[in-house]
């Protein structure tokens, strides 16, 4: 254990901080769920890429800087400290990217990673289906082999970024006779392929969000398969491990929220209940604990470890922390909590954040599924018989 940064790391932090101070948009961008906000966020990805910040851990050949995970964490800390926008390409850089790095061929890496790092190709995920949510092994979308192509048919849903993104990835049943986890293949595809229809889903706050994707004999070349045919479940689980584990939610985001919450508390201390005060203290405590844990996971990976079922602990923790922090803010706002914009015209981003936080315990594998994974894989409890 050595909890000091090297001079090089400190210099790197200063470099990130200076760049962000010069480039982060002064005004918040519109929501990336709408066309206009999406375009703003894509432009921001390209601005980041201009500074060579697309994905700092990747090799320079792929548009990165070849940095290690500690430096990635420093980058993320300064990114969130600067109040920089959400990453519209997170499905690409944080989920698919590491998977390609892990199981992709040299050709696939060269083809997919650089445009991802440059923000030229924005990625959607396409995991769920109407009857395969928590039970993802119930997938029925088909990928029938036809020579050097797969022909995709079926329906995906809850595709984040699905409305506007360029490409997507998901699991398809490449063996028609297979059941459950077997016979699935991990396939990436161009969202503008003939035969694809996308329909944005209107979210509870009235804006479009994720999308449904319908496949009608969509042809995608076999070289767009990641990993072996029929090995898609394992490839996806590795992706899910990254998603829930290290990268999907880096700690800086929660530390920034805790910091803002402390400020909000100070401004409203006179009418806050005791439990609200302590919830503010707990927000900082939990965000810090999450950061420490992330540094520990990063150090483990750097020492040759892999993220396993521990990522489920992470998913439970950050999603419930995020919801709790925003709930506390709503209590502090009191009568103003319900306003989408305050009287001074400022957006009530605590309210938006609270609504968004409600998706945390649901998406990327519901917390009920995560608790099953923790219990069965980490604690060794038996799978259910009749229960």
């Amino acid at each position: 254990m050595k909890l000091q940064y090297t001079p090089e790391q400190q210099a790197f932090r200063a470099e990130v901080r200076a760049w962000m101070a010069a480039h982060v948009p002064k005004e918040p961008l519109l929501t990336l769920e709408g066309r206009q906000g999406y375009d703003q966020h894509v432009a921001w990805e390209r601005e980041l890429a201009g500074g060579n910040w697309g994905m700092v851990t990747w090799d320079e050949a792929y548009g990165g800087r070849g940095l290690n995970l500690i430096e990635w964490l420093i980058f993320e800390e300064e990114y969130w400290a600067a109040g920089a926008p959400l990453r519209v390409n997170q499905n690409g850089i944080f989920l698919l990217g590491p998977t390609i790095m892990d199981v992709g061929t040299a050709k696939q890496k060269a083809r997919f990673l650089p445009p991802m790092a440059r923000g030229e190709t924005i990625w959607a995920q396409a995991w769920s289906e109407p009857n395969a949510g928590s039970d993802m092994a119930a997938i029925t979308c088909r990928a029938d082999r036809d020579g050097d192509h797969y022909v995709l048919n079926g329906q995906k849903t809850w595709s984040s970024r699905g409305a506007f993104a360029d490409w997507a990835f998901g699991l398809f049943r490449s063996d028609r006779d297979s059941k459950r986890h077997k016979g699935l293949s991990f396939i990436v595809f161009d969202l503008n392929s003939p035969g694809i229809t996308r329909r944005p889903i209107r979210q509870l706050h009235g804006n479009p969000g994720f999308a449904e994707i319908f496949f009608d004999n969509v042809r995608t070349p076999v070289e767009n398969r990641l990993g072996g045919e029929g090995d898609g479940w394992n490839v996806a689980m590795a992706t899910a491990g990254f998603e829930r584990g290290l990268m999907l939610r880096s700690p800086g985001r929660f530390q920034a929220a805790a910091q803002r919450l402390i400020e909000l508390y100070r401004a409203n201390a006179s009418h806050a209940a005791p439990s609200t005060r302590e919830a503010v203290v707990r927000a900082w405590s939990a965000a810090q604990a999450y950061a420490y844990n992330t540094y520990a996971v990063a150090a483990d990976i750097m020492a040759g470890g892999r993220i396993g079922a521990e990522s489920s602990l992470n998913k439970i923790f950050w999603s419930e922390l995020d919801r709790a922090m925003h709930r506390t803010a709503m209590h502090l706002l009191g009568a103003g909590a319900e306003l989408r914009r305050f009287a001074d015209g400022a957006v009530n981003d605590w309210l938006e954040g609270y609504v968004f936080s409600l998706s945390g315990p649901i998406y990327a594998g519901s917390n009920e599924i995560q608790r099953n994974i923790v219990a069965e894989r980490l604690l060794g409890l038996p799978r259910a018989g009749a229960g």
Partner: protein
Amino acid sequence: MTYRLSDDQRLLSESVRAFFTGTHPPQSVRQAASEGHVAATVRQGLVEMGLTRLLVPEAHGGLGLGFLEGALVAREAGRVCLADPLLEAALVAAPWLASRGQTDALDAISEGRSQAPLAHEANPWVLGGGGDRLDSIDPLRRLTTAPQVRSDDALLLNIGALMTAAELVGLAEAMLEQACAYAKVRQQFGQPIGAFQAIKHQLANCAVCLEFARPVVWRAACALQDGTPTAPLHVSHAKVVATDAAWSTAETAIQVHGAMGYTYEVDLHFWMKRSWALAGAWGHRDFHLNRIDAALIGGDVPVGPSFTFI
């Protein structure tokens, strides 16, 4: 000492529930949200049912009922997420104006012509007043900055908080029912998700929360009606437990619905948004918690087994 609704009170609840079920289905909430105002037939129905003059004194042509009856109707309004500011006008403004002898506005409320927006320092914005429009997360709350009347009178706050608490109970009940209905039909892993203990126990916790919120609200209504000196304490107690019940049921209900609960297509969000809004209305959660705290820890309210009804 009878902690039980009278036959008349039960009949009132049942008939209002039947009326709302028939005339105010979720579709009317959806329609009011998209059109920006409630259908005229809904308002007309409220007038015809006598709900707008429920708490107007008999001397002014009203039904002259009490706060408990008002709270029972507010709960029913919550159950259907009523797309009309009945609560603010008929259940809060009317009895307060009457109690202050300001009877001029009562006819307009009775006839459904006025929302008589009243503001209080703990409830700064009003439904349907003048001035600037504010944008609430609840598409059915047409908030504005300029009230018709503003008073920081304690009784006004207490009536507002009581009725809001009752509406929150109704909202929570409805959200729990929606979540249970979904859990019975949504299949995953070859069975309805409601058969999983993880789902069952979360929903059971909501039922516990509600079971012990309802009687607190009725008790507050009686205390306010009877002029019990500790009524403000009981009203705050009601607002806190009702807010907690609605808030935790909302979080559970959306979790049970999964991604479906995050869509506009499923009705749940209207009830959630109303709950979030009402948590802050007529004294927010922390305001009422602090009022209980001050009475119990700082104050000299008698506590203990001999003082169930103080």
